[in-house]
């Protein structure tokens, strides 16, 4: 195990669904300002692991620490307040709301309005609205949706919806962003644009965890790769190490180890 400081640590995470052991004793440590990829064949337990990290599922065993704070028992919404945001494998936008309103919803935990100004809008209220709108416009520009602010989210193309979901998650001002299967349903150009945005986020100091079953994709962007198979940690290392590791190749190609 490396001794670099970690922004997120998990140790001994396990989760069972009935008789199915979806995640078995997985430990990981994610260094700040890096892209950490979790890969594995379909059904390897990647999404369950991500749901444990984001708090959607409670682990049966193990602990998680975010910036040395024990978050094992925190609910998903409480984790967001500590700077942990996520997107979903099956895109979950507010489809009936405008693109801008989707992003504005992401500012939920970051408003600076005295309580009484919620029922009597004053100067602090207007300043907060202006700040959120300006920041939302910046986020939409960042993901290339500046011109679509007033469109309904449900009217966007699949690739645009994926980008909007990331902009909405960024509106919570996360320090750790979890992205679930970013390439699903995207064409090659859209995937490249997405990866490029992820690299920019890393340059700005954000930590990103990507769950992905497409191994080639993560090789281009990840600093560390964790390979899962049948719920267990198969291997963790750099992309170059992963690509030549015999057990990883076996898991992906189905060959005998």
């Amino acid at each position, binding site marked *: 195990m490396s001794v670099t400081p970690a922004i997120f640590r998990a140790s001994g995470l396990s989760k069972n669904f009935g008789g199915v052991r979806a995640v078995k004793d997985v430990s990981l440590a994610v260094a700040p300002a890096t892209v950490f990829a979790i890969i594995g064949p379909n059904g390897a337990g990647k999404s369950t692991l991500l749901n444990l990290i984001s708090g959607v599922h409670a682990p049966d065993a193990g602990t998680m620490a975010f910036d040395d704070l024990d978050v094992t028992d925190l*609910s998903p919404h409480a984790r967001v307040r500590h700077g942990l945001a996520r997107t979903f494998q099956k895109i979950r936008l*507010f489809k*009936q709301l405008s693109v801008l309103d989707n992003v504005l*919803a992401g500012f*939920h*935990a970051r408003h600076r309005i005295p309580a009484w100004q*919620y*029922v009597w809008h004053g100067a602090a209220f207007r300043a907060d609205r202006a700040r959120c709108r300006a920041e939302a416009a910046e986020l939409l520009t960042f993901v290339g949706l500046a011109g679509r602010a007033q469109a309904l989210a449900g009217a966007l193309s699949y690739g645009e919806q994926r980008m909007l979901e990331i902009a909405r998650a960024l509106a919570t001002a996360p320090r750790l962003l979890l992205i679930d299967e970013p390439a699903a349903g995207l064409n090659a150009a859209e995937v490249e644009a997405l990866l490029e945005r992820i690299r920019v986020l890393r340059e700005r100091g954000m930590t990103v965890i990507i769950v992905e079953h497409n191994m080639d994709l993560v090789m281009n962007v990840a600093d560390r790769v964790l390979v899962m198979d049948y719920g267990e940690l198969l291997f963790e290392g750099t992309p170059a190490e992963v690509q030549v590791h015999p057990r990883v190749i076996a898991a992906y190609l189905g060959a005998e180890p």
Partner: protein
Amino acid sequence: MSNADFATAGRARWWGILAAACIIAVLPLIFRDSYWRTNLIVCALNVMLAIGLDFVVGYAGQLNLGQSAFYGIGAYVSTLLIMRLGPPFWPAFACGVAASAVSGMALSLFAVRLRGHYLAIASLGFAVITYQVLLNWISLTQGPLGIYGIAPPPPLALPGLPAIDFTDLANLFYLVAGFALLAYMLLDQLVRSPVGETLTAIREDEVSAASLGMNCRAWKVFAFAVGSAVAGGAGCFYAGFVGTLVPDAFFITESFTILAMVIVGGMGTLSGPVFGAILLTVLPEFLRGIGDLRLIVYGLALTLVVLFMPGGIAQALRVARSRLAGSSPRQTAGAEP
């Protein structure tokens, strides 16, 4: 929409509020007989019930069929307090509002894992239980015999002005309509703040909302508290206005009538349910001649609205406005632009 557009929209709202205040001021001068003045007060009460319910159903997306219970709890708590312990009207009013808010929060906490049809059934069950308690706890509520001779709110003495006597129906209308307008303004400010964004997000998708840091359970409890508090306030006025309390006034059909006002007016807008409440209060008065057949007219109207104008009166007004402006209606769903 730019910030300047928002400032314009904000000013337009204040002109709308001012216009509503003027209309409230002249209505009793136009309708001078006690029959129509009585109907005006019923309109104002129903407006309170409908906008309170819309906050829960239209904005937070929680299908609540218990509004009749919160209405009744406000009425009975304030009246019984005054009868048994003798506090003045306004402290009793505050207690009635608080009791309704607390029961709304209790129902929401109890039904926290339920949504959609299941929440509708649970809240309907709450309305049935409340009705049965009012009917059968005879030592407290006098059951079906009812409570008679409830005094209207006491005269209001403002310094330097003659006292305002609420046995006069016009003055009572001003009081109730004034509170309805106040409730509207408070709810309007709330739904146009981040609170409105939060409730709408929870209505659209709770998993997504939680992923943005929203505590869905707490916000649903909050929505129920606000919606039932407004209904409780209407209940307090109802008791002083009618002078009589019987459980049948708060039977579950009242919940459906209020929901119909919200749907006909337009869920997820605040102005819509105001029109819906007025329409569904006044229309049955014109249909009195056909007796119970009016329930069929009611049901038919509701079906037609749901089929052909799911956004209700608010949607119709929006379409009409954009037709007048010569553009095609903008696609908006639910919330006001």
